[in-house]
């Protein structure tokens, strides 16, 4: 069984971001990058599946050369091999998913796991798009995965309830918190990961014309989301405090 995982190399969520002078991009120099936190659940689920049924786990990442660090993190967690799809730095949404789908197709995976969302783009679309482009069924945000009689049975959370679904393979699933607890890399695996060769695929290896992937969604302006808050501390005795709070919320803000 071939299990693929999609992982993205993203700025650590605690980083302080600065907007570049052009007002359309971010200055990312000196910022610490990590594996997208949601993708850790995907890597863990892929390894758990291999531990139960055998097979091979391949981590796939599209991005700049530095993304190899994130692939090495996945190797250190225990995936068997990694593939970097290069020349994709400028891609997003439609184009990025086309490159990833083409890269994945070379692996003929039986199951693909991905994260529910990349914490840089907050895109919430790449994995679902990849499944659609590959012509395979998928479910987002699963919290349980099982293989039963050659079919995948999953629990998928929605607002106000959950679905128990069954899928023919191959299929793709995006994972979220609750499905498992991602393991830490082990020392021997970290050493092995350092020496591993990571396969690279360029867009021309994948026979894709880069012009076809160009984004049709343009960023016009970035701004820090620093909506000023009033930061009004309410002093006094507890009863007086809540009375004052109630009056403000009702009379000034009209939210009660």
């Amino acid at each position, binding site marked *: 069984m071939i299990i693929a995982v999609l992982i993205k190399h993203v700025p650590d969520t605690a980083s302080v971001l600065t907007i570049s002078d052009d007002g359309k991009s971010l200055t990312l120099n000196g910022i610490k990058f990590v594996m997208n936190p949601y993708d850790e659940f995907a890597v863990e689920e892929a390894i758990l599946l291999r531990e139960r049924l055998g097979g091979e786990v391949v981590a796939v990442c599209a991005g700049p050369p530095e993304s190899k660090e994130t692939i090495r993190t996945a190797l250190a967690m225990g995936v068997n091999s990694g593939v970097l799809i290069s020349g994709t730095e400028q891609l997003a949404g439609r184009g990025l998913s086309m490159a990833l789908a083409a890269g994945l197709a070379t692996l003929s995976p039986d199951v693909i796991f991905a994260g529910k969302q990349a914490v840089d783009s907050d895109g919430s679309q790449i994995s679902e798009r990849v499944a659609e482009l590959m012509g395979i069924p998928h479910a987002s*945000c699963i919290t349980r995965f099982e293989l039963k009689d050659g079919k995948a049975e999953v629990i998928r959370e929605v607002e106000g309830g959950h679905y128990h679904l069954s899928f023919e393979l191959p299929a793709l699933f995006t994972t979220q*918190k609750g499905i498992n607890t991602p393991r830490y890399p082990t020392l021997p695996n970290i050493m092995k990961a350092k020496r591993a060769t990571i396969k690279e695929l360029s867009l021309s290896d994948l026979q894709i014309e880069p012009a076809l992937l160009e984004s049709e969604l343009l*960023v016009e302006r970035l701004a820090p*989301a620093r909506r000023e808050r009033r930061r009004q501390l*309410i002093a006094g005795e507890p009863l007086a*405090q809540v009375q004052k709070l109630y009056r403000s919320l009702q009379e000034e*803000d009209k939210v009660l």
Partner: protein
Amino acid sequence: MSILVILEQRGNLKICGLEAASASRKVAEASGMTLNALYLGRAFDENPSVLAGLGISTLYAYENEDLHYYSNERYVHILCELARELEAKVIVCPATAVGKELCASAAARLQIELAQDCVALDWNETLKAVKPIYAGKVISDVSFSKLPGLVSLRPNTAAIERRGEDLPAIVRRDMPLIPARSTILEVAEAMSGYVDLTEAKIIVAGGRGIGGPENWPVLQDLCEALGAALGASRAAVDAGWIDASHQVGQTGKVVCPDLYIACGISGAIQHLAGMRTAKIIVAINRDPEAPIFQFCDYGIVGDLLEIVPKLAGEIRNRRTN
């Protein structure tokens, strides 16, 4: 040329679909396009007045028992076929869990761009949207250089606006035959009266500062007094005090209520990621140095176990008087 808005149902029409319709109407007016709507479900048997004055010209209702519950394969097929038939230039859907999945799949099938979880829409020669990125730390103004374009709109970010009493024409259709490789084995629905966090107008949230699961009733009582939904920080979820479905933040839910009351929550960046677009934020925390006080509209420094019951009492008093 038209705009297509998806009206989500969970038995009844969801409020966020009506919000999406109101936001879409503004785009329709600015672009001179007509606004149509899509409904997928068992049967559209609501009082049509729920759609009055929203500016929807035709509602396409696909009615079949097998459409009652969301099925990615069926919903995507119907949405894409209808979008092509109507030559939709703009497609708008509420950014709910299923709405976002539907949009992502449909965008791939239609080979178009998608901006998920937007907080505003506009039209100026083309479709524009405002989209939070980096867990809401940065706001991105985006513009579609090619149409059709797809956007999902975060619940609670647009007001429902009605003008006049006009009702849409209703075109009823059955479900076309759609081959599927997935099946629904079971659906577990929450109890009736349940308010989802992402759609709640008021949220009371508790963190590690509540001290232990035995103190949830203190917060639940305030929820009851306010008609609010209960949220939690990751620390409270990780401690096993409450189910992960209540978690607000980067790994939890992104919420946008009118009022967010954070009790015993320090205000970590990953928590702010989930609630920073709330209209009014109140913080109750006994540490005057807690970061949440830098990010609230009103703050009370004090023990939540003392303040919260008093607040619930005050609300009940005022409401009965």
